[in-house]
C-alpha cells in the first residue's frame, strides 16, 4: 500500500470524531487491563488483601465513600475499580485468543477449500450450512453445559468451536474471487507451488475483508464470554471476569447497592460499543460497496 493512501486513511480516521473517541476508549481499557497491577490499589483476587470490614462501601462521591475505593467495594470488600481492570484482563484474553484461533483455523480451511475446491469445498460449505443456525452463543452454552471443566481455556474452546466457520466462509469467498484473476495464472505458469501461491499471493489479498469480520468479532466474543460467566458456566469464581462480577453484584443490586453492578456493566458496554464503532468505520473504509450510510 502506498504511503499516500495510508496518509489519507489516517486523515479520514481523524476526521471521524466518534471513531477517534471509541479508539481512545478501547485503548484506555486495553492499557488499563495490561497495567492493572500497577494502577489498582489492591489485587482484588488476593484474599489476603481484602478486608471484610470494608465491604459494601459506596463510590467516593456518595455519603460513606472512602479512599482508595473510588468506585466502591462489593460485599467481600473487593475494590470495584480494581476488579473491573482485572476482569477486563480475562475478557480481553479470551476475546483476543478466540479471535486469533478462529481466524487461523478459518483462514486455513477457507484457503484450502477455495483453492483446492472439489470435496474439501463441498464439505466445508455443508458444514457451514449446518452449524450456522445453531449460533455461536447457543453452541458455547451447550459445550460449557456438557464440559466438566470450567475456566478460561474451556471458554475459548467453546466459543471457537463454531466461530471459525465465519472466517472460513469469508476467506473462501475472497479466495475464489482472487483465484480467477490473471496474476495467479501467471504465477502458476511460472511453476510456483500451491502453498507458495496460497500464502504469498492469495492470503495478502484476502486480509481486508477478514479484518472487518475480526473487528466486530472482538466485541461479539467479549459479550459471549461475559454471558457465559454471568450464567455461571464460564470462568470460575477464582478467575475474575466482568460477567462474573455482574452476576455477583445482582444480589446486592436489588438492595440498591448499584455500584457493584452498574460500573462493570458500564465498562462492558463502553468496550463493546467502542469496538463495534471502530468495526463500522473499518467496514466503510475497507469495503466501499457496503458504505451506504
Amino acid at each position, binding site marked *: 500500500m502506498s504511503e499516500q493512501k495510508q496518509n489519507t486513511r489516517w486523515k479520514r480516521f481523524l476526521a471521524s470524531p466518534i471513531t477517534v473517541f471509541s479508539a481512545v476508549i478501547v485503548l484506555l481499557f486495553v492499557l488499563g487491563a495490561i497495567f492493572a497491577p500497577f494502577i489498582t490499589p489492591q489485587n482484588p483476587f488476593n484474599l489476603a488483601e481484602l478486608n471484610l470490614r470494608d465491604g459494601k462501601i459506596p463510590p467516593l462521591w456518595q455519603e460513606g465513600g472512602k479512599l482508595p475505593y473510588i468506585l466502591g467495594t462489593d460485599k467481600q470488600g473487593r475494590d470495584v475499580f480494581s476488579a473491573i481492570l482485572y476482569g477486563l484482563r480475562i475478557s480481553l484474553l479470551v476475546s483476543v485468543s478466540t479471535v486469533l484461533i478462529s481466524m487461523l483455523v478459518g483462514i486455513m480451511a477457507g484457503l484450502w477449500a477455495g483453492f483446492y475446491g472439489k470435496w474439501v469445498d463441498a464439505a466445508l460449505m455443508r458444514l457451514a450450512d449446518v452449524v450456522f443456525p445453531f449460533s455461536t452463543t447457543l453452541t458455547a452454552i451447550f459445550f460449557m453445559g456438557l464440559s466438566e471443566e470450567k475456566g478460561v481455556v474451556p471458554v475459548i474452546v467453546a466459543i471457537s468451536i463454531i466461530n471459525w466457520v465465519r472466517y472460513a466462509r469469508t476467506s473462501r469467498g475472497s479466495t475464489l474471487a482472487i483465484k480467477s484473476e490473471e496474476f495467479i495464472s501467471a504465477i502458476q505458469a511460472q511453476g510456483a507451488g500451491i502453498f507458495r501461491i496460497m500464502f504469498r499471493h492469495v492470503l495478502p489479498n484476502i486480509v481486508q475483508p477478514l479484518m472487518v469480520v475480526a473487528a466486530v468479532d472482538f466485541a461479539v466474543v467479549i459479550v459471549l464470554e461475559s454471558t457465559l460467566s454471568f450464567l455461571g458456566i464460564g470462568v470460575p469464581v477464582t478467575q475474575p471476569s466482568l460477567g462474573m462480577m455482574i452476576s455477583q453484584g445482582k444480589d446486592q443490586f436489588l438492595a440498591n447497592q448499584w455500584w457493584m453492578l452498574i460500573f462493570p456493566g458500564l465498562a462492558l*458496554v463502553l468496550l*463493546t460499543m467502542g469496538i463495534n464503532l471502530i468495526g463500522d468505520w473499518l467496514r466503510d473504509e475497507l469495503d466501499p460497496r457496503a458504505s*451506504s450510510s
Partner: protein
Amino acid sequence: MLGYLSRRFLQSIVVLLIVSFVCFVVFQFLGDPIRANFGGQDFTAEQAELFERQLGLDQPFYIQYGLWLYRVIGEPSFNYDEMGNLAFPFIHFEQPNFGKSFRQRLPVFALIMSRLPATIELATLALVISTLMGILLGMWSALRPNSLLSRATMVTSLLGISTPTFVVGLMLLWFFAVLPLDFWVWKPLTGWGWLPVEFQDWRPLSWWPQLPTFGRGETVDLGGWKSGIFTLDGWIHLIMPVITLGMFQVGVMARLTRSGMFDALSQDYVRTAWAKGLSSFKVIGKHALRNVLIPVVTILGLSYGELIAFSIVTESVFAWPGVGRLLLDAVNSADQPMVVAYIFLSAFVILSLNLMVDVAYLYLNPRIRYE
C-alpha cells in the same frame, strides 16, 4: 423447487442424526448411568451387572444407539379395545423418552413440555414484536435518513447490538424495580439540601411505574398449557423480559432493513415503478420491500439459535419459569439426561423452523423457485 426443499429436508435429517449421535455419546460415556440411577448409593457387582443388562449397556455400541434413538423418536405400540382386537387408529407412539432426570426423578420430556409454554410465549412475543419494529424502524430510517427518529434508531440499534442481553435486563430491573422503590418515589431527595424546604419533600417521579421482577404472574390453564397472555398481570410480567429478549433483534433487523432499503431505492426497477406513477405505498411496500425481505428472512432463520440462547439468559435474569431455567439448573447439578434432551430438542426446533424459512424464501425469491 421440490428438489431444493427435499434436499434441505434430507440435510436437516442428517444434521439431526449427527446431533443425536453426539448427544448419545455424551449421554452414554460422559455420565455414569448406573451410579446415577442408584442415586449415589452403594451397590454390589451383581446388582450393577443386572442393571447394566436392564439398561442394555452390555449390547454393542450401534444397538445401544439404535435403541436410544428408537426411544427418543417414540416407541410405537398397538391399540387394543376391551375385546383384545386391534382398534383404530391401530398404533400410537409413546412420548419421546429421554430417560429420567437424575435430579427430579421424573421423565425429562414431560418436565420440558411442562415448562415449554412459558418459553414459547416469551420468545414468540419477543421475536414478532422486535422483527416488526426493526423492519419498520429500518424502513423509516432509510426513507427519512435525517429525521430525529432515524438518528435515534441508529444509535439505539448500535446500543442494542453492543449491550449483552443480561445487561439490558438488569438495566430494566434498575429503572423499573430498584429506583422506583428506593429513590424517586419513596425516599425524600437526600443530598438535595440546597433545594427550598417545600421541594425537598417532593416526589417528582411518583407516577413512575414499578414492574414485577420475577415470574410470570397470574396464568390461565388451557388444558395443560399455562398461558400468561390472557391476564393483565401476565402481560405486566411479560414487559421487561420481552424487551430484554427483543432488544438485540430490533437492532439487527433495523440495520439490515435500512441498508437493504437504501440499495433497493437506487435500483432501476424502483425508479421505473416511480416513473409509472405507482403510489408510494405500492412502490415501497410491494416492489422495494420484497427484495429487502430476502436478507431479513435469511437472518430470521439464523436467529432462532440466538433467540433460544438469549432466552436462557433472559429467563435467568427474570426468574422466568421456562425451559431455559430448567437447562441452567440441570447444568449446575450435572443432570445429564436433561441437558442432552434440551440440546436435542432445540436442534429439532431450530432445524424445523429453518425449513419453514426455506419455504418462505421460495415464495419471496423466484430465482430459487425456478432453479
